[in-house]
């Protein structure tokens, strides 16, 4: 329990540091948001008035503290381009991107873990080699390209879904989830190949360990040795990988949202960067940081549950 509290504390500290870095970075980037909002024809007086209205005339530490106090209460300011609350803009799109991520995570685990275990179980057989070859190809294809292939195969040829025909969850929940399955598959495929490979090689590594021989010497069946002894040990590196894979998958979903025409966070992030709409960009980066740090916290706790040697 003490371990968990310590981890939570370090997560919060990390978040503060991230917020400080992000805020300062966007405050010192060249470019005047007031100018880009009013256009190049604006007079000096109206620019100054706009800066005052946007709070840009105050010193940076005061702006940071104001922003931080707002952020803690869930208020991330107002978007420069749309003049609406950043929080409501993000909340609107968050379920879409979150669904995509959760789907991808599940698909990655559901494909990678059983196949990795199965391939290692059948090590050296023809089926193992077939799995390895397909896996190598799968690992080499980036998500945006597998996204295009999936659109071609399932969308255009097989007509399982209409490419570009995104429907919102409130209008048609079933249609929404079916549509989201395909981009999630595109994001998950290369990552599932990595999980497969990692689990496969760590299971094969476990086979040579002394405790496996001990387990056989007690009269265990091969199945009992494989599932009762080796699997838990072999899953330790895989758990570490999950945390890293997630950060990568967020980046992957931003691109894949463009391929499949999904109006998620990725789209707002891209337009906000183009428009220098910094409050939105900062908020999205903080959100991504919260998700990554949160998942890594869960991974650490899971790690501790699986491996008693951690934290001692």
């Amino acid at each position: 329990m003490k371990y968990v509290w310590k981890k939570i504390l370090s997560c919060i500290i990390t978040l503060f540091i991230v917020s400080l870095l992000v805020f300062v970075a966007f405050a010192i980037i060249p470019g005047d948001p007031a100018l880009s909002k009013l256009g190049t024809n604006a007079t000096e007086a109206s620019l100054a008035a706009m800066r005052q209205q946007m709070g840009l005339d105050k010193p940076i530490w005061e702006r940071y503290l104001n922003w931080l106090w707002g952020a803690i209460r869930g208020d991330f300011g107002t978007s420069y381009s749309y003049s609406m609350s950043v929080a409501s803009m993000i909340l609107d799109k968050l379920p879409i991107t979150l669904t995509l991520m959760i789907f991808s995570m599940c698909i990655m685990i559901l494909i990678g873990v059983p196949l990795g275990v199965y391939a290692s179980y059948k090590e050296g057989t023809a089926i193992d080699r077939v799995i390895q070859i397909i896996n190598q190809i799968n690992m080499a294809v980036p998500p945006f390209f597998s996204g295009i292939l999936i659109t071609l195969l399932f969308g255009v040829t097989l007509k399982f879904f209409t490419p570009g025909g995104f429907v919102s969850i409130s209008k048609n929940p079933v249609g929404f989830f079916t549509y989201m399955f395909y981009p999630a598959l595109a994001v998950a495929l290369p990552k599932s190949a990595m999980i497969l490979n990692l689990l496969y090689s760590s299971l094969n590594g476990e086979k040579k360990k002394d405790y496996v021989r001990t387990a056989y010497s007690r009269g265990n069946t091969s199945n009992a040795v494989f599932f009762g002894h080796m699997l838990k040990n072999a899953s330790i590196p895989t758990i570490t990988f999950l945390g890293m894979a997630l950060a990568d998958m967020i980046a992957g979903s931003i691109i894949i949202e463009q391929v499949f025409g999904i109006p998620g966070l990725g789209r707002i992030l891209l337009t906000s960067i183009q428009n220098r709409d910094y409050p939105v960009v900062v908020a999205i980066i903080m959100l991504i940081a919260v998700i990554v740090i949160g998942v890594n916290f869960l991974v650490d706790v899971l790690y501790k549950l699986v491996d008693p040697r951690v934290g001692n």
Partner: protein
Amino acid sequence: MKLLHVEDLNIEFHDHLIPETVVFDFDLDMDEGEIVGLVGESGSGKSMSALAIAGLLSRHDMRKKGSIVFEGKEILNCPRGELRSLQGDEICMVFQEPLTSLNPVKKIGWQVEEALKIHTRLTAEERKKRAIKALEEVELENPERVYDSYPHELSGGMRQRVMIAAAMIGNPKLLIADEPTTALDVTVQSQIVELLKKINREKKTAILFISHDLSLVSQLCQRVLVMQHGYVVESGTAEQIFKSPKEEYTRRLIAAIPTCKELDEDIPVGECIAKVENVNVSFTKRNGRRTEPIHVLKNVSFTIHQSEIVGLVGESGCGKSTLAKTLIGLLHPDSGTVYLEDKNPQMIFQDPYGSLNPSKTVQFIMEEPLKNLTKMTKKERNALSLEMIEKVGLNEAYLSRFPSELSGGQRQRVCIAASLMLHPKLIIADEPVSALDVTIQAEVLKLMTDLHRELGLSFLFISHDLRVVHQMCDRILVMKEGQIVEEGNREQIYQNPKHPYTKELLMSAGLL
């Protein structure tokens, strides 16, 4: 009926084009309650034979011929299902390295009861009771706590006791112990041997004891088989083997056991070349937010003179290696002074395999310190490496080899040759022979004494093996928990030890 009858056991590997036989015509008979020793150097086929008897050789590229009959039943090449009903129940095993032989993510209790789970229909409660009793029987204190621990929370000796408890829980008829004491400290070694004796006496369990250590085998076994290159070269009662060995190889093995005979006539000792005074070294250990210092060396003082071999003995964790590191300047003492006349003292390590860079040639490894510390030309360096490689009994051809192309003994020779390159006065040898087979051990020790005599080198010789230390050293330091508890010359320490710890060490080694 014999408990175990092995006849004409042959084991072949088929992973290369030409099959390689590792065990030839192995015969063994064991009665109930008998203790048989299986002795040989690494690669002699002793572990292979034992694993075959335990039914643990099931690689698909391996062929086994002959017959292994256990209680009247043929078990060689029998279906795995039939074998399983014996494993963990009638035939049990204890392995060399207790840490890696236990599953790191399962609790001790789970692992000790596992055999019961597989072979009996006992309830969880009954199993726990039996497990606690088994842990008690291997003389573990606080068995309930051990039951709920993980392997990494126990010491080496405790882990091996746990392994024995897990093996003995089903009251097997045959216990196969494959080098069960090799990874343990000398005092723990003798405790484990005593424990095996007790088990044999009280439970009438037959024990097949595999070891490279002839002195241990002579303490424990009634009958002994000696193996070399896959053959049983000699077998007989323990007394026959040790008192009147027939075969040349057996005689060589026995001769190579470090005895307390000196290898070296004493040569005059010169002036002081190293002086350590009141040295304290501590590390800080983090325990949550609190940090607490651990004192590894406490007020250590000693001197080493020219042409002197000083022995440093003690068990693992007593601070021997920390002292060595402090002496050559890898660690700085908190207080106290280290004076060294030699600017470039050299070190030789225990594991010659791990301490040589596998991607570099012998020549590169030997010349590396010269490149870093001297302005010698390439020609001079080459001449020197040639001189030194010949000095350690190898020849020019070895200079272009890689470490993987050398045997363990050759590797340690290369390490010694490399340490001579800077013409040091002092060499610190940290367990230089404990990873080597006993006949190789004798050769390397001989080399070290030759160099000592020829070059007038001084050694700080760190070892846990009191026989080797007696052979090599003029003066001996006994270390316990970071303190030098006794210091004296060879006769004082071995014939008239003062400190109780010295006495305990000598007793465990069978020297008192």
